[in-house]
C-alpha cells in the first residue's frame, strides 16, 4: 500500500529552483535512501514532505490524502515526523522536556519517553540535562527520539550522521536499527553511500533537484550510484 506519493513536486528558494518535478511513491514499511551531493535538493525535498517548505508546484499525498497545503504541525498529527538537519533541539529544554513536547495525545503507540530511553541508552543518564549541554551524538539521539515519540507512520531522517564522530554515528545507527526493524516507513537522507545502501531497501539519487537514479539496494552498483551522485555520466556524454 502506498503511504507517500510525490507528484511532480517543484520547490524553490526564492527564484532558485531546488527541487524539479520530483515524483515517486513510497510503500508502507519501506525504507528509502535519498542520496546526492550537497545542494542536490535532498533537504528541501524532505522539508517539503514535512510541510516546512511550500512547493511551487506538484502535489504531496499521504495515505491517499492531498496534504500539499497542510501545515507542518498538522502533518505531525497525521503521522509524518522529521528529524531535521542540524538536530534543531530546543537548547534550554532538558532531554526529557525535548521528548515530552513532541508527544501527540492522538497518536498513542509504542514510543514513550521510557521506551525511547531504552532504545537510546546513551540518553538515560542525561534525562534532566539541558539539550545545549549535550554532545553531537547525544543531541542527534534526542532529535530522533523527539520525532519518534509522535509515533509516526513516516519518519524523515535528514543527515543523521552529519558532523558526528564515527563512534557517535555507530551508536546512533545501532539504535536506529531498532526503529527500522519495527516496520516504520523511513525516508533517509544520507551522505554516507555505503551506510545508505546497507540500511535502505530502495535508493533514489538526486542531482540538481531532479531524480536521476532509482533502484533497490541490490540492483544498483556502487559505480552507478557514484556516477549519478556526481553527474559523471552526463558530463561524459556532454564531452563526447
Amino acid at each position: 500500500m502506498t503511504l507517500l506519493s510525490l507528484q511532480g513536486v517543484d520547490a524553490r528558494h526564492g527564484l532558485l529552483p531546488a527541487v524539479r518535478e520530483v515524483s515517486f511513491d513510497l510503500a508502507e514499511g519501506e525504507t528509502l535512501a535519498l542520496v546526492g551531493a550537497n545542494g542536490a535538493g535532498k533537504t528541501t525535498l524532505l522539508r517539503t514532505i514535512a510541510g516546512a517548505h511550500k512547493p511551487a508546484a506538484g502535489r504531496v499525498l499521504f495515505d491517499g490524502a492531498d496534504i500539499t497545503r497542510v501545515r507542518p504541525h498538522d502533518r505531525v498529527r497525521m503521522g509524518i515526523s522529521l528529524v531535521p538537519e542540524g538536530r534543531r533541539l530546543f537548547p534550554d529544554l532538558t532531554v526529557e522536556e525535548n521528548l515530552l513536547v513532541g508527544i501527540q495525545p492522538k497518536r498513542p503507540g509504542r514510543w514513550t519517553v521510557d521506551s525511547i530511553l531504552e532504545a537510546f541508552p546513551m540518553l538515560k543518564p542525561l534525562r534532566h540535562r539541558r539539550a545545549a549541554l549535550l554532545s553531537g551524538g547525544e543531541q542527534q539521539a534526542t532529535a530522533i527520539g523527539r520525532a519518534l515519540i509522535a509515533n509516526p507512520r513516516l519518519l524523515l531522517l535528514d543527515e543523521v550522521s552529519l558532523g558526528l564522530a564515527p563512534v557517535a554515528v555507530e551508536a546512533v545507527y545501532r539504535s536506529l536499527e531498532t526503529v527500522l526493524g519495527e516496520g516504520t516507513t523511513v525516508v533517509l537522507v544520507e551522505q554516507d553511500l555505503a551506510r545508505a545502501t546497507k540500511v535502505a531497501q530502495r535508493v533514489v539519487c538526486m542531482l540538481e533537484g531532479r531524480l536521476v537514479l532509482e533502484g533497490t539496494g541490490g540492483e544498483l552498483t556502487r559505480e552507478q550510484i557514484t556516477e549519478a551522485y556526481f553527474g559523471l555520466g552526463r558530463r561524459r556524454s556532454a564531452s563526447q
Partner: protein
Amino acid sequence: MTWVNAVVQGFLLGGFYAVLACGLALMFGVMRIINLAHGDLAVVGAYLILLVLDHAHVSPFIGLIPVLPVMLIAGYVLQRTVLERSLRSGVLVPLLTTFGLSIVAQNLLLEIYSPDVRSLGGQAGSVATASWQITNQISISAIGALTLGGAIAILGGLQWFLSSTQAGRRMRATAQDADTAELVGIDSRAIYARATAIAVAIGAVGGMFLAIRSTFDPFTGPTQLIFAFEAVVIGGLGSLWGTLLGGIVLGVAQTIGAQIDPQYSVLAGHLVFLAVLASPRGGLLKVRAAT
C-alpha cells in the same frame, strides 16, 4: 529610619510594577513582541472592573473574576486577528500595530467614559487604606503587601505553568524556535495566541491594582507602560523573575528619589533604567526566553 521606610515602600511599589511588567515580559519572551498597548490594556481591564462594580456592589477583587475570562478571550482574539498578521511582516510592524492599538484603546475609552479621573480605591474598602505600623517610621500598606504578594503569586504560577505543564513546555519550545516547534507538532500560532491571552489577563490584574492604589483615566496607559517596560529591561528582557527584580529596583529608586526630593521620584527611576541599559549586560539577569 525614614530611608529604611523608603526602601520598604520601594519593594511594595516594585510588586505593582512587576504585575504590570510580567505580561509584557511574557509576550516579549515568547513572540519577541514589545506590546506598546500593554498599559492601555491594563487600563481597559480597570474600566471593565468598574463596569462590573457599577452593576454589582462588590469589591474590585470580586469584580476581577468575570473580567479575567473576558480579557483572556480578548487577548486570544487580538493575537489571532491582528498581531498574528503583523508578526509575518518582521519586528517593526507589530511595534507599529500595538502603538496603533494603544491609540485606538485610549480614544475608545475616552468616547465611552469621558476624560474623568476615576478610582476603585473607595470600593475596595479598608484594603485600600489599611496599613501595619512596624515602627514609628516604618509602615506597610495592606494594598502594597497584597500587590507584592500578587506579583509573586502570578510569577510563581507562570513559572509553574511554563516548567511543569505540557502547554507551558510547548510555549517555551516555541519561544526558542517556532519553526522547529511546528515540525514537532506544535501549533505555534495557537501558542502565541495563548501567550497573548495570558499576558492581557495579567494586564487586567495590574489594571485592578492600579485602580485601587491610584487614579486612572483613558490616558493613564502609556505612563504605566513606561514603568512596566523599564522593569522588564532592568530585569533582563524576557526573564520572568527578572521583572520582579526589575520592578523592585525601579520602585526602590523612585521612593529613594522621592525621599531626597519628591520631584526626583520618577527621574530617579529613569536614571537607574538608563544606567542598566548602558551597562554591558543590558539587564540585571541573563536574557532568557520566558523562563
